[in-house]
């Protein structure tokens, strides 16, 4: 079994050594050009999004999709996106941040602690925990949607932020990552010596283990953030009040608004809003890239 995920892998007990570059470090124009084809594929739709975010509603419908229209309306669109409908977009943005901070943050915390527990302790029912968690991943979310909705309704949680946050707290994938990561990132000897010194388990965890787990935590957090930020199905079912919508649902509502009698077609704001929605995530990826790189580098060491 090799490391299986972007998570830094298992052999990390040694100090960080970045893998040597291949001996003959020839860069290849051909290979670069070929890979660039892939790059065009991945970036073209994003270019489309950026270009069309600069168009007015009329220009959007009347001009070639991959080039700019005469009128550069990007800033006007951004302004309108934030002011349209009494500034509801800002509310959606804040909601999304709330769900991400509490939901993804909580998910990372739970997964980290539990992953550590699974990696470093033997306890009754451990195998059952695995079987259950992993088996549950294969159940389609729609299977859970209606029952979850009915259960949450009974306790009055629907149409509240909790209906989004509580289910977001669980990331079986994150648990799996942290468990494989913790198994190798934390040498047993350190834990043993801490125990000999009489440290309590949670003290050991927070003082000694947590720092060692940092690269893994960043990775899990990043994936949890993406999952929460992009969450669509759950809010679709749980929320009715647009005041609690996350961005994804809000954008879909704006897109659907054109189909309401008397509703205003605002495809230009849908596109600009989409652009604004993905920018924070892209920025997070770019900023956190350093952490991954260290994480990945740390994971790349092998005896």
């Amino acid at each position, binding site marked *: 079994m090799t490391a299986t995920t972007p998570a830094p892998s298992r052999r990390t007990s040694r100090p960080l050594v970045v893998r040597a570059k291949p001996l003959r470090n020839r860069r290849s124009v051909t290979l670069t050009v070929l890979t660039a084809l892939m790059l065009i594929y991945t970036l073209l739709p994003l270019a489309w999004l950026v270009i069309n975010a600069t168009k007015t509603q009329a220009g959007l419908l*009347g001009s070639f999709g991959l080039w700019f229209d005469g009128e550069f309306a990007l800033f006007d669109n951004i302004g309108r996106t934030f002011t349209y409908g009494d500034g509801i977009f800002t509310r959606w943005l804040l909601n999304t941040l709330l769900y991400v901070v509490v939901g993804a943050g909580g998910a990372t915390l739970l997964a980290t602690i539990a992953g550590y527990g699974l990696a470093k302790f033997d306890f009754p029912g451990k195998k059952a925990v695995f079987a259950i968690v992993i088996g549950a991943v294969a159940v389609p979310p729609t299977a859970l949607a209606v029952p979850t909705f*009915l259960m949450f309704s009974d306790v009055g949680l629907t149409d509240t932020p909790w209906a989004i946050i509580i289910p977001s707290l669980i990331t079986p994938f994150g648990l799996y990552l942290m468990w494989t990561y913790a198994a190798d990132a934390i040498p047993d000897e350190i834990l043993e010596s801490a125990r000999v010194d009489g440290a309590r388990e949670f003290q050991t965890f927070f003082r000694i283990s947590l720092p060692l787990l940092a690269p893994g935590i960043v990775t899990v957090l990043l994936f949890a953030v993406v999952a929460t930020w992009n969450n669509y199905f759950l809010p679709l079912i749980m929320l009715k009040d647009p005041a609690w919508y996350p961005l994804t649902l809000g954008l879909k509502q704006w897109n*659907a608004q*054109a*189909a309401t009698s*008397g*509703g205003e077609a605002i*495809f230009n704001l849908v596109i600009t809003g989409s652009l604004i929605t993905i920018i924070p995530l892209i920025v997070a990826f770019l900023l956190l890239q350093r952490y991954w790189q260290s994480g990945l580098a740390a994971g790349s060491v092998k005896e």
Partner: protein
Amino acid sequence: MKVTRRGTVLVGAALSLSLLASACGSSGGDSGGGGATTASAGDVQAALDAGGTLTVWAWEPTLKQVVADFQTKYPKVKVNLVNAGTGKDQYTALQNAIKAGSGVPDVAQVEYFALPQFALSKSVTDLTAFGADKLEGTFTPGPWNSVHSGSGIYGLPMDSGPMALFYNKEVFDKYGIDVPATWDDYVAAAKKLHEADPKAYIANDTGDAGFATSLIWQAGGKPYQVNGTDVTVNFGDAGTQKFASTWQQLISGKLLAPITSWSDAWYKGLGDGTIATLVIGAWMPANFETGVAAGKGKWRVAPMPQWESGGKATAENGGSSLVIPEAGSSKALAYAFLKFADVDEGVKIRLDGGAFPATTAELNSPEFKDKKFPYFGDQQVNQVLAESAGEVVPGWSYLPYQVYANSIFNDTVGKAYTGAATLAEGLKAWQDASVKYGQEQGFTVK
């Protein structure tokens, strides 16, 4: 008024459930009926005096101003207007809330075609207890029939969608096409236009349950017969055949633009002459003005094309009512809001916002009829639309599970629009699927 992002749902209105017992005649007014009254008109005033909070689920944009004015008039009442989704999405949310027994709003917007479903399960309140039966004559017959179910009145009509032909005069003039008076003329116009300009189409259609049922309605078809839980679904009648054979010509001749209604392409097509006509409900002008700025001055409104030369038959398309869910908490106060929005001051407020009324007083007022629309080249559009409201073919009814039936329209009839089947075959498949679902749900279906 409605229409959702899914073409399918753009549905017709008026589901004259009063025709349940079609023998009773559909005067729609046979009011009141039995039922112990649990509230009275007096309670309504008392509730207003006491004040309280109301939650209203609606997507209709003009209600925002209605709510504001309502709160100004009754400062003790606080109204939370929530857009819980458009059409189908909102019904899903409403049904779920009712099933869960919590989070049910006090007032909800429900389209006419969807109302029987809620009325049948008694999940909305019979308003006769509040004296709604005394509003007989206030509304035009189509919408008024639509809010009846059995002897009860389950909502107050908010707007209506008598159909008319919207056409792009600029395109018609350019190619010398006359405004079609009959559907045969319409097919001829479609051919002439598309031959003259292969990029132009008489209309777009990728299969829309509301549109199809409205045309069948206009043609005199009565595919749905409903009597309590006894239901008949039959797309074999003469009216349906008329629609199917005529529309099949348009589909087979590739004379319909393959553009789905309410998409960005649709709005563009309406503006640039790609889509030359639109046969749709009377609520459409407001959408033209906000969504099709490029078409300003080009469009006009004419009576709906007829199945019989010289005929005067129309149908309803879209339109919705406000209802009071049975599980809502303050019904008397909710009724006060319904009355304000649908009968009293709210009607005028919504008219000013561009809505099309369901009330006879407004439809007949000179101020309404003579209004000139700059968008339509100063045509007095409401003259045509108000006339259409009076010519709606009586006797139509929708299924008590029309929301679901419409949702599978494109699964079945949709094949006709892609050329994989004929329209008649598609309608048969839709009939079979609707019958099957009805039986599974415990209805007696024939």
